[in-house]
């Protein structure tokens, strides 16, 4: 068992190690990388994708996946744009966006729990339905939103920019729910084995449905923050966010097989890591065409480590005959 312990412990700390390596690396290569202003900037830029990643983490914990988050963002933003340009009050726009997130999430949840279709197909289908709908809404044209949205990005809470505060706030709340509520602990059980959880009396269906709704709402929240940064809705709004979110979660130690992972430090670190990469590459004036290459390579590595960890665990949990006289405890 000792062999497992040390190897596993190292693997578990990978997100932190990776993060420090990247920060250190860019810090060495570029003078301004490690300045407070830049680091806060990274946090703010990471916030939209980060919030989406938090929701995605919950879904991944149940051994599912939500590929529709980017599309949900787009639909929410498109509707928001239309409403804002039609003069609707700000609070109503916000509420509607959240509602859209919830509804889409609910549809995902329904199909996943009631029909036995794989989550990745359900959410993939919804991705295209959503994107198509949003493209129709915007007629493939960009919409510039009223300034009130941009102010979101500029407001500060206790000296911290609102987007970053919101991101961290949601992260803390989610981590609390995951670690300190029955619902959260049951998510881990369902992720390990849905059928076993059901046998143990857990309402697996309800949990799955809720988790997808949460993911949808997080996508809407991410859209709000993204609007705060861009101030406009373009046809590419929300594109690739599902990928960013999955990457952040996996980089942060969440297993694609379900049952393992955390929002803090995990996913938050993962999101910051991805953003640091982009930020660092920009500072170094690297070829922008290289971004997707580097990002996808890093994500591939993260998933690879996850698989390695799983393989190691499986091997060491093989039925073991105790050949030495064992102790009754410990």
């Amino acid at each position: 068992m000792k062999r497992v312990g040390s190897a596993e412990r190292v693997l578990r700390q990978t997100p932190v190690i990776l993060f420090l390596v990247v920060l250190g690396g860019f810090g060495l290569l570029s003078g301004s990388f490690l300045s407070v202003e830049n680091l806060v900037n990274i946090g703010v830029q990471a916030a939209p994708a980060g919030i989406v990643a938090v929701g995605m983490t919950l879904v991944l914990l149940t051994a599912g996946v939500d590929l529709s988050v980017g599309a949900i963002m787009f639909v929410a933003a498109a509707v928001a744009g239309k409403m804002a340009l039609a003069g609707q009050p700000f609070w109503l726009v916000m509420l509607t966006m959240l509602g859209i997130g919830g509804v889409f999430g609910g549809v995902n949840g329904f199909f996943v729990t009631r029909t036995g279709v794989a989550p990745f197909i359900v959410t993939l289908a919804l991705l295209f339905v959503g994107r198509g709908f949003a493209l129709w809404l915007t007629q493939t044209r960009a919409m510039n939103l009223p300034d009130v949205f941009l102010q979101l990005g500029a407001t500060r809470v206790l000296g911290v920019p609102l987007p970053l505060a919101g991101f961290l706030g949601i992260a803390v709340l989610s981590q609390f729910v995951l670690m300190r509520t029955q619902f959260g602990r049951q998510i881990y059980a369902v992720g390990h084995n849905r059928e076993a959880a059901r046998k143990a009396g857990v309402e697996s269906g309800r949990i799955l449905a809720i988790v997808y709704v949460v993911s949808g709402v997080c996508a809407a929240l991410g859209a709000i923050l993204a609007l705060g940064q861009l101030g406009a809705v373009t046809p590419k709004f929300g594109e690739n966010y599902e990928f960013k979110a999955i990457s952040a979660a996996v980089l942060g130690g969440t297993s694609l097989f379900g049952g393992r992972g955390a929002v803090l430090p995990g996913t938050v670190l993962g999101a910051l890591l991805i953003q640091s990469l982009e930020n660092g590459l920009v500072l170094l004036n690297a070829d922008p065409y290289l971004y997707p290459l580097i990002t996808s390579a890093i994500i591939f590595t993260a998933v690879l480590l996850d698989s390695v960890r799983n393989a190691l665990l499986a091997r060491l949990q093989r039925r073991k005959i105790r050949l030495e006289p064992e102790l009754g405890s410990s």
Partner: protein
Amino acid sequence: MNAVAALEFAEVSKSFSGVRVLRGVSFTLPAGRTLGLVGENGAGKSTMMNILGGALRADAGTMRLNGAWHAPASPAEAERAGVAFIHQELNLFPNLSIAENIFLTSFPRRGGVMIDGRTLHERTAAVLAEVGLEMSPQTPVERLSTGQCQLVEIAKALAHEARLIIFDEPTTSLSARETEMLFALMARLRARGIAMIYISHVLGDVMRLCDDIVVLRDGAVVAQGPRAEFTIEKMISLMVGRTLDHLYPVRKDAARGAPVLEVRRLSEPGIVRGIDFTLHRGEVLGIAGLMGAGRSELARILFGLDRFEEGEIKLDGRPLGRGAPRDRIRRGLAFLTEDRRAEGLCFEASIADNMALVTLVEHTRTPLRLLDLGRWRAAIATMRQAVRLTANARDEQPVRTLSGGNQQKVVLGKWLLAKPRVLILDEPTRGVDVGAKFELYQLILQLADSGSGVLLISSEIEELIGLCDRILVMNRGEIRGEFSRAEFDRERILQAALPGEEVRA
């Protein structure tokens, strides 16, 4: 405080797809007593307990738990009624802690939402103390041994105030010491007035632990009464329905041939140690032992499915490297695995496709390796006949539509088509009805008579005694005993499988 729990089954029946699995089962468990439930595989024990535990609904009959009508619609309901089922395959979540596993659906909470960590810790520690498990409630379950996990399951039962606990083959993965701890715990539970049902193949344990015994055969109760009315031999003959002589085909006393499989000093740390034996042509060599003794692991290592660190395996005098199953098959080995659902059959594939899987290459023609349909069909038809597969099934039918016995025949047929020099069988008659069992035995003996060596792993000592020329006994990864046909003795074999355990007659 001693809650009285009595259990009554009255004419409980259950059928699956037209096959009657339970036929009017009736028995009584007096309050605070321990009942031993024995029967062959497929006799209906698991089905009975699943009905009691709420995982299945009975088709007919009633149950009374402590006088009250008991008809749970789900495991959760049965649990609320005070029934706890400690399954053979433990139902714990390794990614959660002991405390979280125990209180997964009933966490103590503050303010209705937040988990009350301190109370959780206290309650868990209390119940762990009752079962004698000295571990912190925060320990992740993945760090526990099987025995410890079992104690957690029992702790879970106690935490939910179970008044009836069902143990399904609890000692199969336990070490001797853990078994003793379990028995001591059961004595304590008994003193508290908790009723228990103990299901096990280790009849000696049943005799030791239980106040009353119920014997099931083919879905019906054939005997019940206090322990004093039973002996192990009587239980066996009741379980089986006839004396041992007529269960197994007559074995010709064949002369032992040359060695075909030689294993020397085979070791893989934590799995097997110093395995040394020789299998001869025409010989049926049995491997006895409790689950967890390393028999299946040994078989997997021999077949190339798992690695080994030290030692040597020789087939017909030539060493077998550390190859994969593909390699072994080419050299003439065959392996009928323990779990045909997981590794023996492609359940959705047809009978024909399953049967031909190992030997496909032989029915193809180069250059593109196209199937010669004619040869393929003929080979399958011949083998179907040879294993006496039910004529009711067409070649194209998926194997999941077959009964357990017929499924096993398909697997056996698959390997027989390869004309193996050595056939390893791991629990070949598990989940197979008595009639099909006999036919499988005949096929196995036929194969041995034709000159192949057969390695037979089985948990049923009677089966080994009936079929084998020699029996090896494995215990905690090592070979602890060897018996030739003349020396076959059930008690002594059992004793070798459980060192330090007295076998009560």
